[in-house]
């Protein structure tokens, strides 16, 4: 028995050597309790969004005036709203609205931000100047006021809202990517690729982009959390997702006037929004620690 043990550890340490980065990365992530909690929450929300019709006990839009403003019970887990709709079911269906908006707006923001940061940092000079002044402008805009304005001008459909949220939130990514690219551009391997005749496009996509991925992935995750919150705020103020389409923000707004009579109408949808945003923040924070061994336990 003892004779075989050394051989076994020998094998596993060989595996460690073969792909050390991956093992330590996922190990670091899994060892972080907060990150695991976030990942589990995120999984629950994702499954909830996909299987909403199977999970939700009631339809999201069917009204039942007889059962209006019923407090939480075994039939209506989180009570009913003013039109007798089941709040639990509506909150689950709202996951299908808010999460995709957050993810797709993040993708828009990332595409714009990474492209601008990459071009700016890689080519420098005049282009850098123009693009960075553009970024300054975006960052100088009071983004929430800007969103109030553009949603008023361009309409409040889900597609438009997603694009607007994406196009107004790429400033920080652009700056971060640019500074990363500036540092990477000096590295020998870029010089090597350059002297081997690789095109600018190839160097940017094959050599620089992979090295900026950790920062991009972390930013993307945290950004989804932020965008979901902003969408919630806009919908709460009545300039985001319009009822009867359920969104956590507009559900909280519906309960605003009923706070004294029916606290559950506001409290539960807000909890969903809070937990969903929290799950992305926990995962993003865990990813940041896992990517960067200097931080984290």
């Amino acid at each position: 028995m003892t004779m075989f043990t050394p051989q076994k550890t020998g094998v596993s340490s060989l595996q460690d050597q073969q792909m050390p980065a991956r093992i330590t990365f996922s190990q670091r992530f899994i060892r972080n309790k907060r990150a695991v909690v976030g990942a589990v929450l995120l999984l629950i929300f994702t499954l909830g969004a996909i299987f909403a019709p199977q999970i939700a006990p009631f339809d999201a839009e069917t009204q039942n005036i007889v059962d209006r403003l019923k407090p939480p019970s075994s039939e209506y887990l989180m009570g009913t709203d003013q039109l007798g709709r089941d709040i639990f079911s509506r909150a689950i269906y709202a996951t299908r609205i808010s999460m995709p908006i957050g993810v797709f707006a993040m993708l828009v923001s990332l595409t714009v931000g990474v492209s601008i940061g990459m071009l700016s940092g890689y080519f420098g000079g005049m282009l850098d100047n123009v693009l960075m002044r553009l970024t300054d402008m975006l960052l100088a805009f009071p983004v929430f006021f800007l969103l109030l304005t553009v949603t008023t001008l361009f309409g409040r459909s889900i597609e438009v809202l997603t694009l607007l949220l994406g196009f107004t939130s790429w400033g920080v990514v652009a700056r971060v990517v640019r500074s990363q690219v500036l540092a990477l551009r000096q590295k020998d391997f870029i010089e090597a690729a350059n002297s081997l005749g690789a095109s600018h496009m190839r160097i940017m996509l094959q050599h620089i982009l992979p090295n900026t991925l950790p920062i991009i992935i972390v930013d993307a995750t945290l950004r989804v959390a932020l965008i979901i919150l902003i969408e919630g705020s806009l919908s709460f103020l009545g300039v985001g997702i319009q009822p009867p389409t359920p969104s956590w923000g507009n559900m909280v707004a519906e309960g605003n006037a009923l706070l004294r009579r029916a606290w559950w109408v506001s409290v539960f949808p807000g909890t969903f929004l809070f937990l969903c945003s929290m799950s992305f923040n926990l995962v993003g924070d865990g990813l940041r620690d896992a990517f960067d061994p200097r931080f984290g336990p």
Partner: protein
Amino acid sequence: MQRYLIRRLLQMIPVFIGITFITFMMISLAPGDPVVSLYPPEVLDRIDLELLRDQLGLNDPLPVQYVRMIGRFFTGELESFQERRPAMELIFDRLPSTLLLTTLAVIVALLIGLPVAIFSALKPYSWFDNVATVSVLTGLSLPQFWFALLLILIFSEQLRILPSSGIRPIDAQTYEPVEMIPYLVMPTIVLAIGLLPSIMRYSRSNMIEVLSQDYVRTAYSKGLTRRTVLIRHALPNAILPVVTLIGVIFPLLLGGAAIVETIFAIPGIGRLAVRAAQVRDLPVMLSLNIFTAVMILLSTMLTDLLYTYLDPRIRLS
């Protein structure tokens, strides 16, 4: 110093032009007739749209229109169609309430955030630091509007110790500062919580970095007590850069103000913006965008200046 100031102001010009240009383009590109959106519906059926378009110069080339809009912004001719008053007048009426609220929030956030961040930094990954990190993440994820409603539910509806609305404008004749304190408690807390995560994160990483600096090690090796090293050597250098955050959190504050002022019925520019958006009062929204953008630019410049004043190591260049 003077030359630096002038150059910074000159640098603001292209950014300002850009901001007004983008605002203008948004309006021009937006679907729908600008005449329709610039005038209240009840006026529309009584007037000749084509004539109006001519009079407003909407048939002129875009550059001409752009210059005219800027002119109207500066002369204060952009009028709110809701209140039939210059938009800038509405903004200046409501500015004091917002400034009071945001200043209070910044002070509260600094008073809570700085000490907590510094204790966290002294023992990174201790239980205290872990609790602080979770609080930061919680604060980041907390929907401000929902948190505000929870506070109202608990403190106004259940305990009945704080009023949920009823604050008066600062310049009102019936304004009694002491009487207004209870009205400001919940709005300030909600707004401050929106700022805490960035303040705590930033000061914590600053402090950790400062503690690893050579001059701190030198101070220890000179035999100074931990207390002296921390208070005299580390703290000032860790806290100073937080000044630069003020410029960053300004946009955050305005977004928070829009929500908080709406919920607690505070007559500030945030509520004005929400109201204008709800009723499509475009002149007001335009003016608010330009005005707040300029405020953000100025505050960024002021924080830079303040920082160079507080930390002589930074050279103006």
